[in-house]
C-alpha cells in the first residue's frame, strides 16, 4: 500500500479482513448508526471511503453546506467557531474529536450550514460518506432515516442532560451541531 492510503489496523489486515469488513466493524460502534440492521449498515460501510488529511487541512469550513459525514479512524480533529481555524496551538479548540468519533452526521439530515470550521490537528485518517450516497441508501432502506433520527434524538437528550450537569459545575458545552 502506498504511504498515502489510510493505515489499516494491523490486526485486521493480518486476519485477512477486507476494508469493507473493517469499515463495518467501525460503523457498528458509531452511536449515529446504532439501531441500524446489518443489511443497511453493510451498504453504508460499502459506500464509505477512507480519506486522509494532513495537519492543518480542513474537513469543512463554517458557513459551508454539509456534503459528507466523517468517522475518525486515527488522528484528531479540532473544531473552531470561526470562518478560519487559528494557527496551530494559538488557542484551545472549541471541540475536538478522536478515533471512533463521528462528525457531521446531524448536518446531513438538514439544510443548515456548518457553524464550525473543523481541521485536522495531526495526520488524520477517516471514513467518509457523502450526502448523495446516504440519501440514495435511504431511498432503498427508508428505515435508515428513521433510525438516524432516533439516534439523534437520544443523543440530543443526553447532550442536554450533560449540559445541565455541566451548568451545575459551571462548564460550557459547545458543538452540538457537529454531531
Amino acid at each position, binding site marked *: *500500500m*502506498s504511504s*498515502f*492510503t489510510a493505515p489499516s489496523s494491523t490486526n485486521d*489486515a493480518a486476519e*485477512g*479482513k*477486507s*476494508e*469493507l469488513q473493517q*469499515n463495518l466493524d467501525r460503523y457498528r460502534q458509531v452511536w449515529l448508526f446504532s439501531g441500524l440492521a446489518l443489511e443497511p449498515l*453493510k*451498504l453504508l460501510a*460499502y*459506500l464509505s*471511503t477512507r*480519506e486522509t488529511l494532513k495537519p492543518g*487541512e*480542513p474537513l469543512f*469550513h463554517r*458557513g*459551508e*453546506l454539509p*456534503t459528507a459525514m466523517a468517522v475518525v479512524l486515527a488522528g484528531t480533529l479540532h473544531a473552531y467557531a470561526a470562518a478560519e481555524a487559528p494557527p496551530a496551538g494559538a488557542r484551545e479548540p472549541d471541540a475536538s474529536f478522536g478515533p471512533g468519533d463521528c462528525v457531521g452526521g446531524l448536518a446531513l439530515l438538514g*439544510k*443548515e*450550514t456548518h*457553524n464550525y470550521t473543523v481541521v485536522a490537528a495531526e495526520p488524520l485518517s477517516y471514513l*467518509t460518506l457523502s*450526502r*448523495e*450516497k446516504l440519501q*440514495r441508501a435511504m431511498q*432503498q432502506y427508508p428505515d435508515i432515516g428513521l433510525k438516524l433520527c432516533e439516534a439523534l434524538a437520544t443523543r440530543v437528550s443526553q447532550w442536554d442532560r450533560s449540559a445541565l450537569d455541566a451548568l451545575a459545575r459551571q462548564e460550557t458545552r459547545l458543538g452540538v*451541531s457537529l454531531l
Partner: protein
Amino acid sequence: MVTKKPLFAWVKESSLKLQLLLLAVIGVTVAARVFPLEMQKKIINEAISLKQVELLVLYSGLYLASVLLASGLKYVITLLQTSIGERALQQMRQQLFEHILTLPLGFFRKTSAGTVIASLVQELTAAGEFVGAAIAIPVTNTLTLLGFAAYMFYLSPTMAAISLALYPVLIFLLPPLQRRTNNWNKARVESTRVLSNKISESIGGIHEIQANGANHIEGRKHFRFLQDLYRIRITWTLYRQGVKVLNNLFQSTGPFLLFLVGGWLAINGRFDLGALVAFLSAYEKIYDPWKELMDFYQVYQDAKVRYAKTMEAFDVEPEFVLQPAEARAKQELAGAIEIKNLVFEVEGGIRLLNGIDMSLANGEHLALVGFSGSGKSTLAQCMGQLYKYTGGSVQIDGREVAELPKSDIAHNMGYVAQAPFIFDGTIQENLLYGVEADLPLDAPRDDMGRVTDPALLPSLDRMIEVVQQTGIFQDVLRFGLNTVLAPEQGAQAELRNKIIAIRQDFRNDHGPDLADYLEFFEEGRYLEHSSLAANLIFGHPVKSDYAVENLAKSQFFKNFLSEAQLRLPLLTLGDELARQTVDILGELPEDALFFEQSPMLPEELESWKEYVARGRIPLAQLPQEDQDRLLELALRFTPGRHKMVPFSRLLETLVLEGRGRFRTALEAHDPGAVSFYRADGYIESQPILDNILFGKAKTDQPHVMERIQQAIVMLLIEQDMLEAVVSIGLQFRVGTKGDRLSGGQKQKLAIARAFMKEPPILIMDEATSALDNRSQSRIQNLIETKWKGRATLVAVVHRLDIIKNFDQVAVMKAGKIVEQGTYAELMAKKGSLYELVHGAQQH
C-alpha cells in the same frame, strides 16, 4: 379531448383504406372457406362413385387450392387486423400521453407515475387489440357462419334446421354457468388473498412462534384457511370444467343426430352420400366461427371496461392553453408583475395563498422569505403559471397570467425548481432544453428529433459563457477530462500531442506538489488505482483481443495466466468479488452510484445472482463460460476502489512478476499488439486526465480534485485547449434523472438552463440551496451585476445571508405577506424579517 373519445371512435378513425381492403379480403376468404365443402361432395358423388380419376384429381386440386387460399387470406386478415390495431394503439398512447403532460400539477400529487405508466403501457393494449379486431372478427365470423348455414340449408333444409336447433339451447344454458364460474373465481382470488395474509402474518411473527414453540397453533390456523381454499377451488373447477364439457358435448352429439337422420334419409335415397359428408364437415366447422365470436365478445367486454377506466382516470381539463388560438408570433413581455388579492385555495377549503398584493417593476428583484409551508413556493409557482390561482389576479405587463398560452409564458420566463429535474442525455442537451422548447414547433429536425439548423441554437461560445457564469464550468471541465477519446476522433491527433506536451509541463510544475495525491504509472510498482488487467499488461491494447473485456476469452492470455500461476488466484478473487457484491447490492436497483465501488456492472447483477444462488462449486469444475466471467471480473478489480475483498501481498507479487513475463511472452507471440505505457506516448485506453497525469488520482475528494484541476487548467489555457476539453465535457451523459450528477451540479445545470434563455422574468425557487458558499456567491453576483434592471427576479430564499441586495424582500406567513420592503427597512423595523434572521442565527 382524447379522454372524451368513445372506444368506437378509434375504429371509425382507423385507416379507411385498410378497412376496405380488409372487407374485400374477408369476402373472398368466406367464399374460400365454403368452397371446399362443395368439393368434398363432388369428390364423393362424382369422382369416387363414378370412378372418374380425372375428376378426382381436379376436385382434390381445387379443394387444396381453396384451402391454401383460405389459410393465406386468413394470414393477410391477421396482418391487416394487427396493423390497424397497432396503429390505433400508437395513436391512443400518443394522444393520451400528450394530454397527460398538460394536466394540472395538482393531478400528479394524487396520481403516481406508476399509475400513468400502467395506463399507457398495459391498460390500453386491450383497447388497441379490440380496434384491430372490431371489424375483421365479427364480419369474418358472422359471414362464415352464415355461409356455412346457407350451404347447409342448400344441402338439406330439414337437417340444417335440426343441427342448428341445438345452438339456442347452448345460448340458454351457457351464460348462467359462466356467471357461476366467474363468481367462484372471485371467491378463489379472495380466499387466496386471505391465505397470503395469514402466511405473511406467520412469517412476520416468526420470532414469537419459535420462542413460544407455537408451531402447531399457527399450523392449525393455516390449515383452516387451506380447507376453505380447497372447497372453493373444487367448486370453481366443477363449474369451469362443466362449461367445457357442455360445449364439447354439443360439439360431439351434433353428428349423432346427423348420422341418425342423415343416414335414414340417405337409406331412403333422399340424400346422397357426398352431401352427407359435406354436411358433417360443415357442422364441424361451424363451431370455429361460433367460438371466435364468443371470444371476441370477451375481448370487447374487457377492452370496453379497461378503456373506460383508463380514460376516466385522466379525464381532467388542462388548466392552461398550450398555444394561442390563432397562429401569431410569441408575445414579448417586459416583465412588470402586478398581483392583486391573489388567492389559491385547494381541496378542503385550505388557502395556501390568502390575499396577496404586490407589484414588481420590470427588472426589479424580489426575495420571498418565511418558514416552510408559508406559501413562498406556491406564490412563485402561481406567477410562473404552474398553478392556477383560484381568486384575484396576477398580471404581467397588464396581461392576466391565467389567460396567456403556455407558449408565451415559457418564452418569457426562466424557472428553476426547488429540486430541479435533469433529463437523461448530455449536459448540452439539458443546457439547451429551454431554448429548444421555445423554438417554433416546425423548426427543422432530424429523425432523432435534433434541431438540424445550428443557427437556431446558441453557439458553443455562448454555452461556455453561461456554463462559466453559473459555475458548472469546473464540473463540465472535469467530465471532459475524464473522457476517453474515441479512436475515430481523427482530428484529435493534434489534441493527443498537446496532451502529451501538457503531461511534461505538469510533471515539472506540479509533480512534486501533488505527488501525494497521485499514483504515477511506474514500471516496478503495483498500481492500486488501476485495474488488475492494466497492472498485468501495463499498456493499452492496440488489438481489440487484448482489451479488458476480451482478455478473459483470449487463449494466449489464459495460457499465460496458468503459467504465471495466476489463474486460480484470479478465479478465487472473481468468485469472492461476485459473492460480496451480490450480498450487498443483490436486492437493490441497478443504480450506477451503488456500483461505483464494485467491479461488477449494474446490468450484470442478475446473472451473478444466479451464479451465487447455485452455491459453491469447486472453481476448476465450473463451466468454461463461468470461469471466463470470473476472470473478467477479477481483471477489473482495482484495490484502491473496490474494498469488499482483501488484496493480498501474494497476489500483488504474482501480478508484478507477471507484468514482466507478459511483456516478454506477448512480444514473442504477437509483437505490437499492446502499446506499453511510455512517458511520451498517448494512452488510448485512458481518459484525458490520466493521460495528463500519466497516472491516476488516488481519491475523488473535492478538495484534492480541485487542486489537481487548478494545476491543469493553467496548462490547458497555455496550450489553447480549454475550450476543446469543455466542449467534450458538454457531451457527458448525465444518466437517468441526472443520476450521475451531484445535487449541486444538478442545481447549477438547472440555473444555467434557465439563464441560457435570457428571459425577462426569472423565477428561482430555492435554486441555490445545494450549492457551496462559493458557487452561491458567484450566482448571487451574477444576478446582481447581469440581471438587475434587465430581468424581473422572484427568488424564494431559505438562506437569509443572500437577500441584502434584493430590491424588495417579502416575508410570508401562512399564505399572507406580513412584511414587505427593502432589507434595510425591514431590519430597522425589527419585525418578522428581523426575527427570522436572528432566529436563524441563534442555533
